[in-house]
Every structure is written in structure tokens, then in C-alpha cells.
């Protein structure tokens, strides 16, 4: 038991508990990095992230923009010869960063805001209100002028129809479901 507790405190143990992935299986062949479509933007490429986890270098792993740039395309997981689900590890690291209040690096902050507002939206309405998401995203990132032209074109095609949004009828169910899922974290799930 004591050993288990100790293991959980290490980054390797935390990742295992959250994702079920045994990162110690990684032997650094680099196939994940080789096939990653967004590795060119990452401060630390995927295979080095696995190394950071193995060595429990939490600060270096979480302070890099890597987890926020990851597009979750799952190519890494699909091709790993050792069955290390790299994308699941990225999910786990992102969650650890959020829970432990590690701020996303400046240039990755936009993605952090995106995820926060995305989930906030479905917690409120049960469904994603694309227009609200875009609005809140712009508000919190200050990127008001990005994609304005695109927005106008979509509006013209009647693809943006703010008046049309329908929320889930039983929004209270959604709130309770969120509560139940998120409360589990503190119970050590």
C-alpha cells in the first residue's frame, strides 16, 4: 500500500492512474514524433514527453506547449510499436496541468481557453453553442479580429444562425452529470 501511494505521487504514477498507460514501456524509438502532424510546433516532441514522464520531470513536461498543441489525432497511439497510447498520455498530462494549476505557456493559452469555454458551454446548455463558444473565446483571448471575414462568409451561407440554437431540455441532468464526473477526481478516481 505504502509503495502504491508513493508511486501515485510520481508523474509516472499519476499518468498511469489517469490513463492506464504504462509509459515505462517506451523505448524512445521516436515513431510517435516521426508521424506527429503538429510536432513542428511543439517545444518538446512526443517521444521526449514520454521520457520526461519516465524521469518524473513534471515541471519541464507541463510547462512546455506540447500538450496544448496536440491535436488528438491519435496517429502516435495507432502506430506505437510498444502499445504506449501516447495521445492518452497527453490527455492525462493536460488534466494534471489543469488540476494542479500549471498555467499554459503564453502561445498555448488560446487552446486552454478554447477547451475551458467548450466544456463550460456544454455544462450550461448540454450542447455546444458554436456562436457562444466563439464569442467567449474571443472575449477571453482578445482575438476579436481573427476570422472576422470567415464569420461573415459563413453567416452569408446561413451556417451561423444564433437564433436557431436549441439546448438540452433537462439541463439540470447535465449539471448533475458534470458534478458527478468531476467530483470523482477528488475521491482519487
Amino acid at each position, binding site marked *: 500500500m505504502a509503495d502504491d501511494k508513493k508511486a501515485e505521487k510520481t508523474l509516472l504514477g499519476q499518468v498511469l492512474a489517469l490513463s492506464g498507460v504504462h509509459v515505462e514501456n517506451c*523505448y*524512445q*524509438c521516436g*515513431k510517435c514524433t*516521426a508521424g*506527429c502532424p503538429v*510536432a513542428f510546433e511543439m517545444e518538446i516532441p512526443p517521444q521526449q514527453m514520454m521520457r520526461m514522464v519516465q524521469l518524473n520531470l513534471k515541471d519541464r513536461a507541463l510547462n512546455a506547449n506540447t500538450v496544448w498543441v496536440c491535436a488528438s489525432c491519435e496517429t502516435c497511439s495507432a502506430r506505437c510499436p*510498444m502499445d504506449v497510447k501516447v495521445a492518452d498520455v497527453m490527455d492525462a498530462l493536460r488534466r494534471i496541468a489543469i488540476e494542479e494549476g500549471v498555467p499554459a505557456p503564453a502561445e498555448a493559452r488560446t487552446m486552454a481557453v478554447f477547451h475551458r469555454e467548450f466544456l463550460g458551454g456544454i455544462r450550461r446548455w448540454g450542447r455546444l453553442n458554436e456562436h457562444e463558444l466563439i464569442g467567449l473565446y474571443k472575449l477571453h483571448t482578445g482575438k476579436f479580429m481573427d476570422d472576422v471575414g470567415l464569420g461573415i462568409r459563413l453567416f452569408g451561407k446561413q451556417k451561423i444562425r444564433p437564433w436557431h440554437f436549441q439546448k438540452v431540455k433537462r439541463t439540470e441532468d447535465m449539471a448533475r452529470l458534470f458534478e458527478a464526473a468531476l467530483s470523482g477526481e477528488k475521491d482519487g478516481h
Partner: protein
Amino acid sequence: MPRVGVFVCQCGTNIAKSVDCAKVAEEAAKLPYVAHAATYVYMCSSAGQQMIEDAIREHNLSAIVVSACTPQMHQKTFEGCTERSGLNRYMSTMANIREQCSYVHKDPELATQKALELTAMAAAKAARDEPLFQSEAPINRKALIVGGGVAGIQAALDIAEAGYEVTVVEKTPSIGGRMSQFDKTFPTLDCSACILTPKMVEAYQNPNIRLLTYAEVEQVGGFVGNFEVKIRKHARSVDEEKCTGCGSCWEKCPQKKIPSEYDEQLGPRTAIYVPFPQAVPLVPVIDRENCLKFLKDRCGVCQKVCPANAVDYTQEDEIIEDTFGAIVVATGFDVWDHSDYGEYGAGQIPDVISGIQFERMLNLSGPTHGKVLRPSDGKEAKTVVFVQCAGSRDDQHGYPYCSKVCCMYTAKHAILLREKAPDAQAYIFYIDIRATGKGYEEFIRDAQRKYGAQYIRGRVSRMFRQGDKVRVFGVDTLGGGQVKIDADLVVLATAIEPRHDAKALSQLLGIGCDNNGFFNEAHPKLAPVDTMSAGIYIAGAAQFARDIPDTVAMASATAAKVVGLFSKEKLLSEPSVANCDVNLCSGCRACYVTCPYDAIEMTEHDDRAARMTRMVACVNENLCHGCGACSGACRSGAMTLRAFTDNQIEAQVEALCELVPA
């Protein structure tokens, strides 16, 4: 009244660290039938053995128990003690208080108690031991070798050299095996054929060696010294006696586009063919599935042009039955098929080939006459990407193991590429370089320094056709960053894997396979060429991925085993085998169906008391391994295992129950 002596070994501190050996001896002395008990630091030492022998004489002991390590290690040692002391050698029993006790238990009190219990059980058995005697069987001094590659050839030559007859069964039309496909060998860059063909010729000419090519083992029965084997010699459609190997037939054969197995599908062969010019025997076979004569009853050109009148379309498979004293299995390896490797093109990109295909390409008598050409358009390849560990070290798509030879042959390929085309560039994607033989590390360095091979540490993620090139997405984990190369040719160092029919052969021979499908050796360290079946040995890549020197060394080792076996006058077999009391046997056949070694036959028994003839079980002691499955299955108590009789086992259980606190 039996008089048992108990000897408790301390094994230095291996046992004594958690077992109180003196206390075990002291308590053992109080057990029924125990006349003497002692402990000593190393019972297996000369002094320890002397101590046992002296005690047997002094205390007039009838049987002994040695509480020490596993009987696998020292059973024979202590049987020597009983034999030298004038007792029957089988009046010796071991209790394993090391592997089964001191190694695995930390608590001294409990460990001591368990050691005593194990000793008491052994003493109860020993008190009921009966003298046993080995049985004898004759040895048939002929060896069978399955597989005619370099391993099979070497074993055959060594055994023949010692004066014994050898039969080599080879599945393909020629001996030579994988080594005959290679262009050069690492790390010396010897021409592979130049060093192999003399051995092939020698095997062909040696009067003690019979080569059966285009043949397969179909049935194996019997036991060490007396294997009864049925061999199917496939119809060659050519009379081996008459054929002179002149080549008229295959030159004139109109079926010229059959993919050559020998050239790994890169080049064509004819329907009547020899796989390669130096084939032994130099006698063609007709591939009936592709021959017009057999398909459509047309053509017949080969028969017309044959000056020796050797072509015989009516020839049939021949069954050869023979008895052999020993068998060497040297069936070699297959290479992993990369067609289920989606990210590397699933076998659909013509310019992505395997290492062994590249080997054929490099060869002057190969499909491209030694030029490195793209299979897609026949243009010379200048940028060549080598990908190591394709299917090796890959739990997901291939095999977990390292294939051992790929690092070396890939370096060789890079060197030969540069020799063929000085302006060509090799890029080698690797994970680790494993170069652990004599001259191997130096060879890798040569490839890098003298031949300019670019080693890039990282696995390739994906490759696809891009125009007339193959685009390779890789990574340089040392330099950092992704690597994109547009290659003319990609060579995959595909994994070495067991022969696809290894499993079937293992069942035929009664030898096991490991998790990956290679044949199992009897012991990974101490019996690497033996199998669990006496008289059957394994050599070369049939056991695991091997390079040529290792393969040849293993082959010679099997030959030494065979020659050692044949040098005996007769075979003595262990007596702790099953025995059937025909008076009790009801003929229910429960043992017959249970026996994993086919050692039980049902025979007629003339039952005089009942005045009738009935069927009873009979044990072939040479086949019996003494596993005890039959005596467990027998309901009438007729089947007993010598030295492990029901009586003895019950006594052991009772001895244990007496000691265990209620």
C-alpha cells in the same frame, strides 16, 4: 525393515540462511525408519559425498534422503553415492529445500518447519523404495537431418566425418538454404556462395551422406536410437540418375515468368528449373502447378529436348521409410511479411522491399545482375533508405524480440550499395545498434566512416508513393526533429521469424515451440542444442535468429551430440517409468488415451485364470517419460510409476499430515 539415512545440506548459506539445518536433522532422526541423520555445509562436495558413503556403511543404511537443491541438479550425484556404497543406485531420494523453501521463504521458523516436512515426505518415500534396473535398447547408428541449409550441411559433414551414415532431407530442390541467397557475408564481406558451395559439393560427394532434396518428413515414430521415419520425396518429374544438368530443358521452357522463390519474387524462373546455377544436386524439377504439360497437356518441350531422356511426366511421389538413431532439426527461418504493415504501404509499394530481396539484388547472378534498381521502373536507385526493426521489437504488429542479425546485414547493405554505386547515399533508421560479434562494431564504423552511411536514430512512422519516389517520414531523436526523405528505394530489415510450418514439424517430432514459434531448447544455458525429446537436437535459426558463425557452431555441437550417442554400445534408459500389472488391468484404455508420448499399446493377454484372451495395456519403456499421467488415470490400480508408486505417494501424504499441526 528399511533403514533410511537423512542428509541435510546447508548449501553454504543458501539454505542455512533461513532454514535451521541442524534442527531439521535432529527432528528427522526421530522419523519412522530413519536410522541416521546429519547436516553438512556442502553435501555435493567430495567430502559431503564421502560422508554419505561412510554413513551408509557404518549405519547399514538401505536408502538415503538428501535434503538439498533440485534433483535436476544433483540427483545423479547422490545416486553415485548409493551405487558406490553397494546399494542399488535408485535407493536415493532428494528433497528440494532450496528452490522450494529457503529461496522463497524469509521467516526462519516457518522455513525450517517446511524443510522438515519436505524431508519427512522424502523419508517416507525412501523407506518404500525398491531396487530398480535400467533397460537396454540397441542404437541405430544413422542420423537424420531435417533441413539442408548451412546448419544441416555442417552437421551432416561432421557426423559423416566420424564415420556414421547421414540422410539430409531438404524441402526445396537444392541444398544451400538461406546462405545460398546471400551475396556477401558480414563482417568480412566474403562471397557467400564461394564459401558455401564447397561444403555443398562435399556433402554431395561424401559416401556417408544421402541427400534427399524436394522431400519432406511426413511421419516420425519410435524413440532415441530407433526413430522410425517416413519421408515423402516429391515427384521431381526428372530422373536424377539420368539427368546431366545440361540445362537444355530450362532454356527451352516457354513458361518464363514464374516469380522465383530463390530470387524472392524479384525475378522470374521457368516451370522446369533449378533454383540457382550452383544448385546441388544440379537436377531440375518441374513445378507442376505452372507447367503447361500438367495444366493443359500441351508443350512437352523439355522432354523433347532432353538429350539424356531424363524428363518423366509420370513420376510419382516416393515414400522412403527408414530408422534413425538421432535427428537434427535445422530448418532455418522465414522473414516476416510486411504486407500487414499498413503505415509502410502494406506491401503495395513496389519500391519498398525486404532485406533479403535487396540481398538478391546485390548478387551478380541475381534478378538485376548486381545492380541496385527500382522494381517499379528499373531505374538505378541513388537514395536508399534502410529501416531497421521492421517487425522486430514491435509488440503491436510483429515480434517482441530483436532479430539479432539486422543491424549487421543492414550495415553490409549500405557498404555494398556504395561499392555498386559510388554516388548512392544510404540512410539507415535505427533504434539501437547491436553489434556484438568479433569484428562487428568495427564493421559498423566502416559503414559510417568509409562508406558514408548516414545513421539516423529513430523509427520511421510512415511511407508512401510520391511521384516516382517513396516519401519516408522519420525522426532524428538525437538531432531532434522530424526527417523527410524522398527515396528511390526503401529496404526494410524485416524480422527473422520461425518457419511457417514449424509448429506442424514440432508436433511431428514431439518437441515444443516457444511463445514466438521457434523450437524450444532443453535448457537455455546448459542444453542449447538439445530438445526435451532425447535424441532430437536443434541447430541454427530454427531455434532463434542466428548469424552464420553461431549457426555453424550450433550445427557442429549437434554433431558432437549425435556422435557421442552413436559411440555408445547400447542405450540405457531410466527405470522410473510406468508399469502395468496385467492381472489388475481391465483394458479400459484410460491410460492409452491419456499418455502424451504414445508409450502405451493395447496388447492381447492370455488370462489363464479366466480362460480367456483379453486386451491389456502395455508400456513401451523406451518411449515412457515417467510423467505419471497414466497411473493417475488408471481406475483399477494396475498402472504404477516405478519409484512413485501409489503406496509411496500415500505414505508421503501421511507423513505430511502427521507433522502439520492440526
